[in-house]
């Protein structure tokens, strides 16, 4: 018996050694593969792909795999079948949930797997996709006149450092929603167009015992999104031209001061905002508890459905307020489809992106999944407008001319967490806005 244990122990040790031999360098292969990858990538991106060859008959019979989270019920299958009929390229669409998307993509890239050709890219990953050599640089591949067809906010959100990393497949920003009944009760006949006015209106609502607004200011990404909207409205910037963080000056500080004043001084904000995300805010608004909110698309048609909302027919949506010379500013949440560098069917993938950049894709995508188009011309297209069920189409798409990006550089996720932590400190009154932002800048600089 004892000797058996010994044997097993010896085998285990042997196996460990065997597997161990390959372990020590495993830390570095990622380095060697990508170090050489950098040089290879540059040439691969430029020479291999050609926009004029996307209709090449040789692409027939190829199959590309798409990994995305926008179509969980596979509603787009018919549309993809149409694409296959036209080009002979098969599309294998794989759905996942948004939260595991980034992990799945990075695992595929790290393991150099060519299983996935096209992936959904959130705007905040653009820097990482470009600098980490995840995606093919499309800057010189997609002709300028094709790029110009997209709404400014959706095109900006798939670019990093002037490089095009993906093709925007839908538009998204935050919007300004208000409860017409509550505003009228406070004698306000039209929604605020500047943040100053927003503050005055909020105080009027407070006198009636109504919370003027609620926000998704739990320490999370939603908090950073609102900070970006407000910083841009106050004319602030996140980084200067040399990539140095400057949001602790000017507009950035004004924005955080404004947010802190709403919570600490005016007390016009539902205090629960500090532990709420976008969904909680939406629920409070639908329950008629708050008069104004800033939130993403998809509030309608639910907000107008009496079975799901107590404010059906009593709400409206429009441009986010601006300040001074800025008419309106809203953070973008657009996404794009990018081609992975490890793909073996890049040209076919490019043909697919060309299809995504057309009405043939964007109209059914809007009709079936509710994602707003990214092509400018579709905002006036009668077929698109008529298939809108919310009756707020033009007001929603109007905002896409005033989108502002989160700073989507490679280290974004790390910074965003540091920034959210510090902003939250200011909001609960532990730090002054200036001190909080200074410390966020310091954290970001030390992580670089």
């Amino acid at each position: 018996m004892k000797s058996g244990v010994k044997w097993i122990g010896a085998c285990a040790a042997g196996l460990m050694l065997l597997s161990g031999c390959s372990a020590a360098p495993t830390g570095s292969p990622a380095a060697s593969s990508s170090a050489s990858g950098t040089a290879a990538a540059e040439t691969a991106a430029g020479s291999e792909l050609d926009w004029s060859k996307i209709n090449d008959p040789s692409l027939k019979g190829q199959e590309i795999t798409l990994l995305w989270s926008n179509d969980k019920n596979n509603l787009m299958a018919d549309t993809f079948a149409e694409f296959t009929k036209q080009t002979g390229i098969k599309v294998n669409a794989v759905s996942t949930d948004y939260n595991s998307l980034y992990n799945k993509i990075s695992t595929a890239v790290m393991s150099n797997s060519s299983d996935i050709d096209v992936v959904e890219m959130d705007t905040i990953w653009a820097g990482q996709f470009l600098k980490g050599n995840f995606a093919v640089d499309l800057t010189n591949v997609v002709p300028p006149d094709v790029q110009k067809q997209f709404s400014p906010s959706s095109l900006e959100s798939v670019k990093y450092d002037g490089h095009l990393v993906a093709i925007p497949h839908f538009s998204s920003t935050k919007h300004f929603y208000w409860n017409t009944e509550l505003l009228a009760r406070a004698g306000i006949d039209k929604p605020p167009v500047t943040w100053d006015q927003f503050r005055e209106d909020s105080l009027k609502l407070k006198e009636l015992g109504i919370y003027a607004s609620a926000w998704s200011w739990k320490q999370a990404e939603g908090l950073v999104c609102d900070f970006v909207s407000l910083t841009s409205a106050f004319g602030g910037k996140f980084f200067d031209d040399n990539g140095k963080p400057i949001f602790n000056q000017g507009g950035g500080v004004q924005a955080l001061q404004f947010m802190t004043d709403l919570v600490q001084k005016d007390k016009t904000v539902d205090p629960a905002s500090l532990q709420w995300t976008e969904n909680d805010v939406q629920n409070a608004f639908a329950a008629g508890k708050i008069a104004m909110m800033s939130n993403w698309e998809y509030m309608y048609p639910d907000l107008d459905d009496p079975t799901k909302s107590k404010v059906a027919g009593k709400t409206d949506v429009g441009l986010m307020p601006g300040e001074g010379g800025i008419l309106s500013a809203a953070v973008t949440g657009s996404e794009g489809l990018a081609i992975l560098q490890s793909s073996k069917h890049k040209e076919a993938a490019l043909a697919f992106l060309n299809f995504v950049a057309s009405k043939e894709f964007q109209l059914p995508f809007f009709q079936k999944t509710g994602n707003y188009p990214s092509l400018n011309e579709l905002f006036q297209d009668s077929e698109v407008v008529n298939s809108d069920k919310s009756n707020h189409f033009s007001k929603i798409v109007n905002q896409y001319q005033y989108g502002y990006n989160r700073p989507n550089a490679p280290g974004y996720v790390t910074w965003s967490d540091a920034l959210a932590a510090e902003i939250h400190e200011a909001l609960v009154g532990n730090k002054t806005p200036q001190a909080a932002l200074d410390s966020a800048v310091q954290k970001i600089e030390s992580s670089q």
Partner: protein
Amino acid sequence: MARISPSPRLGLLNRKRKDTLFAILLLLPTVYVLCKVFIYPIYQSAVWSLFKYNLTEPGDVRFIGWGNYLELLKNHDFWVSIDRTFYFTILSVAAELVLGFFSALLLNQSFKGRTFFRGSIIVPWALLTLVNGLMWNWIYQPGNGALSQLLHRAHLLAPDQNPVWLGNSDSIMNFVILADVWKTTPFMTLLLLAGMQHIPGSLYEAAAMDGAGFWKKLKHVTIPQLMPSVIVAVVLRLINAIRVYDILTVFTGDPTTSVSYLTFNNAFRYFYLGRSSAMAWLTTLFIILLIVVYMILLRRNSDTD
């Protein structure tokens, strides 16, 4: 005769040997899988902890020795998270021990419906931690949450006061402790109850003969007799509590609320594999330390017996 006698022994030995070899052969796949998915990753994380290994900077992977560890020991966030983890661990385990002890005492008495109560206390423990978190998150909602409503109705909170319970990362820990105590006290109760059932009734009778009251019996009979169970229960809970993670992800986006949360974010959000491996190893060292203390206590306990 003399020539035959050794051969069956040899055959027996051979057979024994063959059996062992066969057993090893059968075990090999399991051992291989265990090595591949369990032992090897542990070893690999030890190697990684000595590297600067950020997936976001694939061009810059290099050996830095103890760099990650030294950096962590100077890292403010790391210490804040260690602080909060220990605060949570010590307070929640202490509260669970006291509450669990008294509810075990209660359930050890014979009364009508005892089986029902013994069964029903398991319900909170059977809940998923995440579900428990979502439920308590709802209770802690400002304004309409159950906690605020309860305090308002009991006039413990002025009507114009509406605190944001989960607004501040330091105070969040107290609410996490409350939620955790609610959920895991039953676990403590069950372990202690099992221990109590093994205390012979004759000891209590003898104590009663000597004129001991309730508290004296508790002090001189129950507690000393229960010590082995207490040690097992406390150490199991400590090891579990120190890894608190899932409930916090519901309550807050602040990763410095626990060391596991911080480690997870560093590994799977920022992809700092080197640094997060070092973090995981430092935490493991703390836990190993706990286990050593546990072993010593256990041995001392069995020696005194």
